[in-house]
């Protein structure tokens, strides 16, 4: 189980315990956090689960695919530490990570 600190668009922080194998997007939506629309349901097709990841954990997440890269490039709020939460597969090594939900495009 990994504990993740998720900050929503009102700067409220929530602590979520996530089982390995679950996607970060699924864990956040299951928690009922409405800011993360995740319209495509995790198919790497819509970029509505855009989050900023704690930089020190970035290296422990699987590399970005061309699809994810392309979708994020279309966001006005892209940063160096941007990821799509549906592409972040949780593992114990991400325990303590912080993720902030990016503004809506």
């Amino acid at each position, binding site marked *: 189980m990994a504990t993740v600190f998720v900050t929503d668009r009102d700067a409220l922080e929530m602590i979520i315990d996530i089982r390995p194998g679950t996607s970060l997007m699924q864990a956040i939506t299951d928690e009922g956090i409405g800011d993360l629309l995740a*319209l495509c349901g995790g198919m790497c097709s819509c970029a509505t689960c855009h989050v900023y990841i704690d930089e020190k954990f970035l290296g422990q997440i699987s590399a970005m695919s*061309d699809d994810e890269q392309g979708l994020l490039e279309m966001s006005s709020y892209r940063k160096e530490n941007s990821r799509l939460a549906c592409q972040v597969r949780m593992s114990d090594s991400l325990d303590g990570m912080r993720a902030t939900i990016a503004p809506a495009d």
Partner: protein
Amino acid sequence: MVTKCPVERDYFTDHTVLLDPYDYFEEMRPRGPICQLETHDCLLVTGFQECVEVLRNPIDFSSINSLASSAFPLPFEPKGSDISEQIEANRDKYVGGDLVVTFDDDRHTNVRSLISRMFTPSRLKANEAFMQDYATKMVKEVVAEGGCELVSRIATPYVTMVIADLLGVPDEDRKLFEAEIAKGQTVGSIDNPDKPTDTSTLEFMGTFFYRYFQERAENPGTDLLSELVTATYPDGETKPDLMTLISLAVFMFAAGQDTSAKLLGNALRYIVDVPGLQQQLREDRKLIPWMLEEVLRLEGSSKATHRLARRDTKIGDYDVPAGTQVIVAIAAANRDPRRWGEDANEFKLKRPGIREHIGFSRGQHTCAGAPLARVEVATILNCFFDHTSDIRISEEKHGKPGARHYQFEPSFIIRGLDNLYVELDPK
């Protein structure tokens, strides 16, 4: 104030509801965004916010009855405030209980992960040339004939060929599947109330997919079936068993058929009958995706899905005990004036917030094939515009604009035409 309709129509069997489900939902809306049906022991959820809340709460709501529907009593006596174990113990009593659309929890997470990269933009791009070529060939033929019955001649065979190509189904089997699907009963049939959904078509195709997977295991290629046969679950080690792969592939093949085909028919009705829309789209093809989203909202291919409360829970402030079946009325939510405004029933290009409609559902069970449906329908519509100067709906078959008459697929799940006769003027 709560007002009651004099006589509640039966959502699951009434042919007047089939013809105009939107009228039925508006009739029910005054009862509140969540109401108990008189005709069946289940809740009807028509509010947008409430539907989204249910769809995004897989912890409290099981998808076990998403195909079986809420029309029947539970096949067991629910006991206590958490019936999750009872649901799993009775899974085999539910139609489609072995299909991903009905899975919950880890089983769903695992199987869903297998398909999460299958309809990505790059994957669809790779398939685009096939879609374009096939669509062009089909459209040219019917334009040369001056028109056609769109559903059987274009929509159904086109979507069948597209998914067959993506999966890697051999040419010689594609027509067989198409014929079998055409023979089969619709999902959620209102004409067969005792057994509205049967899965015999899927079983027929399963025997073929068994062979495909064996072949791919020995000789992997680059198609999706090859990708599936080598895939692992999110733990990176466990591989799905063969039966899981077969039911997943068969479901992917079949699930997209009706819904994508119906989307094309529904879209063409709006293109022809919304004044000025056809010309607007011809002049600016970038509006096609906007048009499709508005059609998905107003008249998407799925009218409703179903959930079963597995824990004592709430929707908003409404208490929902474990064991309660819920109709999530997608078609009603997509026209909820609280979300979409007083013009919710009107067609409006570039409606603010349009991409938030739930035409493809929401949450864990959002339609995985949605990106494919959007691309394939947009591709063939572009072809129609490329090769025609005007598209008309046959007045002889369907009546004049404003007084059209159509036959709809007799389903309480699917919204779409049984047939659509169009006249096509060549360029």
